């Protein structure tokens, strides 16, 4: 519904954003794809030619690959589990009438605004340090042997750190969704004699299902590329090397660009599988 003139103006004004993003997407991706088929060691001989699918095969057959996949899945799954369960509970709690609701909300949201490196550093030193950390003091207070969190319980510790960071996100979105629930529906259910648990199961939970899906998908995409939290705490040791961190090590630490690029392509494919589901949901909402 517009004139030819405004349509061509629109194309022109859209061009910078589209061209930039197209370049941002295509140029590095094509380069990665190119490197992934080559033996490329910048510090040890440079580009040593085309090797076909060798990098792809070597990447998945290396002893580090499957453990890293497992670590990634445990990390993503663990964080998702914690954030959605506690997110729902917190959202329900915050939706109740109380004094100082605004302040509590702010307290709960705050971790999301803390930069990942600060989060990791504070947790690593001030809470999880086996000598001076707060947890060590608490353990000692109860006469227990302090735990060496980031070496004995390394993956679990990182899950806790990341979950703390993402819990506000889940809570905020679920709270928004709960608040959009028509209160008359709940009142009608109450009139129909449904007890609180049944009201939750039959009315609130179905209403939240879309928001929950969105939370899970968006978090998955961000969690798959968790980096700073591992970089600052364990540097990938003690079984905390995720797929992302493994690729980072191949590319920048051991400077095996060909191998790392093949890993990168795997990561792109993995992210795209999740993205397709997310896009479907977002797309459905676009017309509404």
């Amino acid at each position, binding site marked *: *519904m*517009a*004139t*030819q*003139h405004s349509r061509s103006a629109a194309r022109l004004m859209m061009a910078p954003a589209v061209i930039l993003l197209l370049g941002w997407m295509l140029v590095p991706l094509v380069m990665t794809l190119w490197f992934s088929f080559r033996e490329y060691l910048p510090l040890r001989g440079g580009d040593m030619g085309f090797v076909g699918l060798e990098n792809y095969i070597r990447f998945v057959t290396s002893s580090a690959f499957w453990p890293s996949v497992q670590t990634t899945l445990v990390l993503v799954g663990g964080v998702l589990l914690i954030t959605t369960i506690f997110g729902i509970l917190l959202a329900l709690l915050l939706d109740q009438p109380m004094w100082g609701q605004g302040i509590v909300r702010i307290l709960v949201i705050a971790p999301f605004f803390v930069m990942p490196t600060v989060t990791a550093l504070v947790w690593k030193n001030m809470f999880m340090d086996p000598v001076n950390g707060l947890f060590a003091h608490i353990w000692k207070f109860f006469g227990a042997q302090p735990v060496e969190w980031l070496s004995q319980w390394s993956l679990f510790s990182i899950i806790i750190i990341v979950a703390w960071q993402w819990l506000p996100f889940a809570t905020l979105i679920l709270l928004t969704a709960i608040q959009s629930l028509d209160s008359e529906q709940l009142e009608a259910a109450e009139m129909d004699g449904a007890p609180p648990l049944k009201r939750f199961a039959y009315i609130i939970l179905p209403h939240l299902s879309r928001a929950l899906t969105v939370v899970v998908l968006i978090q998955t995409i961000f969690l798959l590329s968790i980096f700073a939290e591992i970089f600052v705490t364990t540097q990938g040791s003690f079984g905390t090397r995720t797929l992302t961190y493994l690729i980072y090590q191949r590319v920048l630490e051991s400077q095996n660009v060909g191998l790392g690029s093949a890993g990168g392509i795997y990561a792109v494919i993995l992210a795209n599988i999740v993205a397709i589901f997310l896009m479907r949901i977002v797309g459905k909402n676009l017309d509404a």
Partner: protein
Amino acid sequence: MGRIVLDKVKKTFGEVTVIPPLDLEIEDGEFVVFVGPSGCGKSTLLRLIAGLEDVSSGQIRIDGQDATNVAPAKRGLAMVFQSYALYPHMSVRKNIAFPLKMAKMEQAEIDRRVDSAASVLNLTPYLERRPGQLSGGQRQRVAIGRAIVREPAAFLFDEPLSNLDAALRVGMRLEISELHKRLATTMVYVTHDQVEAMTMADKIVVLQAGVIEQVGSPLTLYHTPRNKFVAGFIGSPRMNLLEGPEAQKRGAHTVGIRPEHITPSPTEGLWKGRVGVSEHLGSDTFFHVHLEGRDEPITVRAGGEVDMHHGDTIWLTPDESRMHRFDKAGLRIS
């Protein structure tokens, strides 16, 4: 000056033809109303004249100049939108001054014109307010003010009264008519309300599915509708249309008779029926009468108060000289 000529103007959206080739002439100083049911293409036609949409083919001439590919701002037309489309972040004064500012007019001249428009429209006390602080009627006047300061060749109105409540609507209708008398500028007015069309227009253009059904003065349309559609659309309540023996008797496929051209009587007449719903308004009384062998009731208007009610037997006598006859294709037989 504001003579607008549409020459074989056609509009398609993709595969869909909204307006098949259409010719229309709007004389300078005329008040022309486009009327038709929703989706008939009347708003699209107005937007084509405004330049907010491209014509797919054909030509639009304004004062003899080809304006088909001229940008909206350069056509010398002003438009009042259904939602008023006021700029919410600007004061009334700035809203009215905006087109002048865009034309890079001198500030002194802008002030002079804004003040004079404001006094004409009774907006002077509100000049420093934001649109959000005004009532619906005042907003409407600001939108009109923004149009008149430009001294355009013609005004375009897109259903400007549909967002007002009934009482305000009647008042604004009069104000716009008075404005037209005073400015004597061409006005093109789109509405779906045939009462607005009848009361305001010099010339009514009845549209259906993008096709002009009839062009004429309000009373021409009332007295001699060119076809069944115009007959049914113009006039309130609607004209009664009868087929079958009553039509054949009069040598037509369909005959039409307006409610006000039927005389009801409790005792004698041409057609016998039974009163269904009766509406007693004081000034008028409307009966919905069920004739034998006919599903649809016939609407009858009686002047003043008439003491007949639901279930009563009623006799109807149509005024034969006011009877409209239509052929099988729905066209008028004269």
